[in-house]
């Protein structure tokens, strides 16, 4: 006989702990526990049987895995939290006694925790991290647009806006933006980073506010983690793209609201100043510098000489593509990671290019002052275009409005007749194309340059559709439009034919008439409505078909329909009968699947 089993010693009762029990075990406050859970990514679990997990009680509580909590108990950050608690007590005591100098020294030695080990734990490989930066990007872009307050320090907002700019710079540099969607919530972007779709939402350029029912502490804790995560991810992305991270910031330009333009992307290998950085990476990976590297360095130095006079935006990616014909020497990446998903250039070349990345490269754009510069600067530069803007939208525009190379002007105001216009201005206006902002986004989503005409200034825009709704069976609003257009075209054709063939086609006309009739009858049969029949009759009368043939056609189509229906009915009946033989469980499953299918269909047909 085995040992007696005791209640609560094994199974769900042991595997789960309630939140209160967890807090008591970790000996920290609830706020600290919450912070720890956020940082470590520990979340409650739903036990299969709640009563069993809660030792017989059915009070609604949240449960955590006991192992998760045991894992939190060894967390260095938890120790720091405890230190911080002691520090806060000491500080408040010193302040209460008016001991300013000791308070100052305490403040200087405030316990600070680092999150790098948590990042490494939560994202063991780089791909894991890239997969999970959606939320981080959304938060960083949101905080970059928040006003500072006593809870949100200016440094935090500044850091967030820098991270946002660095991300945009990287996306522009690697030309990895794929989809854009202007929604009522903000602008959705989707980029393809290491074959992972990364989607982020950026609010429109208005100051956001934190409503009262939002707990800022929670958001700030998340932001803390996200900032660290993004820092590490950017470091890796930048170094993999042979760029220096963090990119140097031009303080003057930044103060002049240059946005992305305040940063400069420095290649790691092209200048002597960055040689040390290169050596660092070389040391890290312990690899030799290959001949390929030397060649590339020389070339990039040449390019940097050219850059002074030429366009600053010739991306190294393009250069790499240009030299793709050369043999690619496979080498581990600078950081020595096993590179699970890094595509080699050859594989890239072999792949069919799904997303055209340089659709705007032949064009030069100018932003009108009412359009949002951060959005369109990012979009156009990500797809290879040049862009300028008026000084009111921020400093750093590469050219101004009277530049001769401008081909498109992105404008978002109604058309106004210009009274006083010089000849030169008029010529310039005629030479340029004035498009509304949606054109840019629709071009990106379509993957090619669309006609400017429907999007020109003052026109009512065509509907802007989501590029994300492309699963099978999705409702396509555009399809309905195209069907309508086709119908119109057909009608035109038939009219033409009728007008051109007046006398030589009596027989054929009749045939056509009957065809029309039968088709009309089909419609009537399908719709099974007396109204539809009546319409078909009228159509036949208009076509000049006598009533007998019409009747015959109707009867024929009726019969065909009935036969078809009979066969279908039999099959249906058979299926219905086969359903009898299903077991109860299968029947339920079947009904559930059918229900969801019907719901989806109803949604599409709506």
């Amino acid at each position: 006989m085995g040992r007696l089993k005791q209640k609560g010693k094994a199974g769900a009762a042991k595997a789960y702990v309630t939140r209160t029990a967890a807090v008591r075990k970790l000996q920290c406050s609830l706020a600290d526990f919450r912070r720890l859970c956020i940082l470590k990514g520990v979340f409650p679990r739903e036990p299969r049987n709640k009563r069993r997990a809660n030792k017989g009680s059915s009070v609604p509580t949240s449960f955590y895995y006991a192992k998760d909590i045991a894992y939190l108990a060894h967390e260095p950050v938890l120790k720091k939290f405890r230190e911080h608690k002691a520090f806060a007590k000491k500080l408040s005591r010193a302040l209460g006694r008016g001991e300013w100098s000791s308070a100052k020294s305490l403040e200087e030695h405030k316990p600070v925790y680092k999150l790098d080990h948590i990042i490494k734990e939560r994202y063991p490989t780089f791909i894991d991290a890239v997969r999970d930066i959606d939320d981080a990007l959304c938060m960083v872009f949101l905080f970059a647009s928040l006003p500072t307050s006593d809870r949100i320090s200016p440094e935090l907002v500044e850091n967030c806006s820098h991270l946002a700019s660095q991300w945009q710079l990287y996306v522009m540099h690697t030309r990895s933006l794929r989809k854009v969607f202007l929604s009522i919530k903000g602008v959705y972007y989707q980029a393809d980073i290491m074959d992972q779709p990364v989607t982020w939402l950026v609010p429109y350029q208005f100051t956001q506010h934190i409503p009262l029912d939002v707990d800022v502490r929670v958001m700030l804790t998340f932001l803390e983690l996200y900032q660290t995560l993004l820092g590490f991810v950017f470091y890796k992305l930048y170094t993999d793209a042979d760029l220096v991270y963090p990119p140097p910031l031009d303080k003057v330009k930044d103060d002049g609201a240059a946005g992305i333009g305040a940063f400069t992307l420095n290649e790691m290998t092209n200048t002597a100043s960055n040689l040390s950085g290169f050596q660092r990476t070389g040391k890290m990976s312990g690899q030799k510098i290959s001949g390929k590297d030397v060649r590339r360095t020389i070339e990039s130095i040449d390019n940097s000489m050219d850059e002074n006079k030429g366009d600053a935006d010739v991306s190294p990616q393009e250069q790499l593509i240009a030299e793709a014909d050369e043999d690619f020497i496979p080498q581990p990446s600078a950081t020595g990671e096993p590179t699970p998903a890094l595509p080699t250039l050859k594989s890239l070349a072999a792949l069919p290019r799904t997303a055209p990345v340089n659709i705007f490269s032949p064009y030069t754009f100018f932003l009108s002052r009412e359009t949002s510069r951060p959005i369109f600067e990012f979009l156009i530069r990500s797809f290879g275009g040049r862009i300028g803007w008026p000084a009111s939208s921020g400093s750093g525009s590469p050219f101004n409005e009277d530049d001769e190379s401008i081909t498109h002007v992105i404008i978002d105001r109604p058309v106004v007749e210009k009274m006083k216009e010089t000849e030169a201005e008029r010529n310039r206006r005629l030479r340029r194309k004035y498009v509304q902002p949606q054109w840019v986004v629709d071009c990106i989503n379509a993957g090619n340059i669309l006609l400017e005409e429907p999007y020109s200034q003052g026109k009512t825009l065509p509907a802007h559709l989501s590029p994300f709704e492309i699963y099978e069976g999705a409702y396509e609003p555009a399809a309905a439009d195209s069907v309508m257009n086709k119908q119109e075209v057909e009608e035109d054709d038939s009219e033409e034919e009728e007008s051109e063939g007046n006398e030589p086609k009596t027989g054929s006309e009749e045939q056509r008439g009957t065809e029309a009739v039968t088709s009309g009858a089909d419609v009537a049969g399908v719709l099974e409505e007396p109204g539809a029949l009546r319409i078909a009759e009228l159509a036949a009368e208009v076509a000049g078909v006598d009533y007998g043939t019409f009747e015959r056609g109707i009867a024929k189509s009726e019969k065909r329909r009935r036969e078809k229906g009979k066969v279908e009915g039999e099959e249906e009946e058979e299926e219905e009968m086969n359903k009898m033989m299903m077991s109860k469980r299968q029947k339920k499953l079947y009904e559930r699947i059918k229900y969801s299918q019907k719901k989806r269909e109803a949604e599409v047909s709506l």
Partner: protein
Amino acid sequence: MTPKHWEQQGSKRKASPDSQNEYEDEFRLTNLEILSEEDNQAASSDDRWIDELPDINSSFGDEKTDDEQSQIDSVEGASEDENENGSDQENTIFPSIKTVVSDITGQFKQVLPEIEPEYDSDSSIEDDPNCVGNIPLHWYDDLPHIGYNIDGKQILRAARGDELDRFLATVDDPLTWTSAFDKNAQMDKSLTAEELDIIRRLHENENPDANYDPYQPTVEWFTGKGKEEIMPLSGAPEPKRRWVPSSWEKQKVLRIVRAIRQGRILPSKPKTTTKFEFYSIWSEPASSVAAPLPAPKLKLPTHSESYNPPEEYLPTKQERKEWAKMDPEDREQDYLPQKYSSLRLVPAYDQFTKERFNRQLDLYLAPRVHRVKLNIDPNSLIPKLPSPSSLKPFPTYMALKVNQSIHHIRCISISPDGCWAISGDEDGFISLWEVNIGREIKQWKFGGKIGALDWCPRVDVSFFVVCIEGILFFIIPPNLPNSIFSSTYALLAPAASSPAPPTSSPVQWESTSPDSWSPNKPILTVKLPSSSGVPNQIAWHRRGDYLATVAREGTQSGVWIHQVTRRHSQAPFRKLKGTVQLVLFHPLKPHLFVATQQYVRLYNLSEQKLVKTFMPGIRWISSMDVHPSGDHLIVGGYDRKLCWFDLELSEKPYKILRYHTKAIRSLHFHPTYPLFASSSDDGSIQVFHSRVYSDLMTDPLIVPLKILRGHEIRDGLGVLQVRWNSRQPWLLSAGADGTISVWCS
């Protein structure tokens, strides 16, 4: 200073040129309440006067020395003094006491001033009107008098004026407002100037004493110049520790110095606010621990979220209202689609931060469940069965519909050769008709509801049995071939009646006498004991000698087994658990199936014991049939279930089917074809293909073939009985709508 000096000074004051000052002094004393600038002046004069006071004080000490001189002077100048100090003395209430040297004793003595009888006396008559004595006056508050005089007479309360008088007094007398009612005197008394002054001071939060000086100079008794203490309190010598440096402290400091030199103590720690540097965190190989599952991503936006969506996505007014009314958690979308004509008009989204926050709450507060997404084609769940068209023949269409009765047709039976059918309705009519064309040949009428009827399965004889309440009738159909008729007649009405059974039975067998018999009458009548009710079922044994009848409603156990050849009936069960619904003879073995409400039991009749109990799990069994092979049983119930039992396999059903929407009424296996049919109250008949394999390992194949519809539902009843034609795959059905249908293949 001597009193003389005083006098001098006083005279000096008097002699001072401001005689006006004196006048003022007097004025001040009389009219204290009218204080104004003059008062200030007076105060200043007082101040001056006070300034001179220390002189008086300082000279206080040597007063005694000049005692003798001053005494004479004082006596002489007493009247003068009085005059002089009059201004002071007028303030005091009591007459001043003078100290004089007695003429008699030569000692000092105190002399009170003389009392003038007219004005100064206490006993002046007009003085005190109240002579009640020292008695609290509130004792008399409710009484008309205020006390008693010395003679014991009541002293009445002085009349007080009414409100009008009081008002007039305020008008007439300007001093009324400074007067107060004196309870002792029982009259209004105007306040004196001093009293008014006190009131004023209290009102202004001053000290009520007019002579109080809040700014008196401090008198230094122990401090100040020349009064310092120069002698030490203790005479102990100064301890050494006051001037020798502490070695203990030195040790401590040395220890710290040593620690600093060795680097154990850092004099100024570097600040911890250094900026965090990012590094290549993923350069080391990943640990073998699997990465935690990534959080589910947010849904991607649909067309309806566009700033310029197609028209069909815009909500109507009704939808808007409904959306606004819904709880935010119940909404399918957290936004309302909206259309803006241009991008510049799109406002900020007010729920942006809130949405982010909700996402974060989801991330750290919501339990996550790993759910396997079902990606099954629903049609793959439907079992693949052979097509019905490959399993022909089976009845597919209604060949004939005979309208027989206006009542429900309860039962139906087909002759073993398949040409004739009989049907019985609730009114007691039995019709015999031809199956092929539906022509009615003959009709019998019985007095009562027909419970059941059935043909004898023998082919050499031809008769059928009809049950009504308490009676079984054996009837020979007309137009039989002679040979069959004679053998039937011989069987049912033998010339030599068999010997009566030894045991007397409650069931009586009665033959009709040959001369009185006609085809309209039953040839044999079996009378069941009274109160046995209407037998609902007749089950023939395969050989056609035994038949069993079951009466459900009877008070006794309603199962009887009758033997035709021996004309004998017996009740096989003395006691049975539950009411018997149905019985069936096993086609091959001497076994009997007995169905109670919920169970089916199999009895061995020869050994008289229970073989097996089947549990179909049906609430109330309505019908049952056994497969011709004898190895399978189907049981139908009023709760729409049909159970297929493999008798060898288990007590539990092999298959449970639920396809009728209402109660199953009748089941029947085809005797030769692999078919069975079920009928239900929903008016439909379901035909199944049921192939049974002789191989024990192969499961029987059940394929639904056809749903036959054509009967109407009347009074909630549909098709009450179905019977197969034994030679053809044809089906006969009796409906509650009074029709009989023949279904052919």
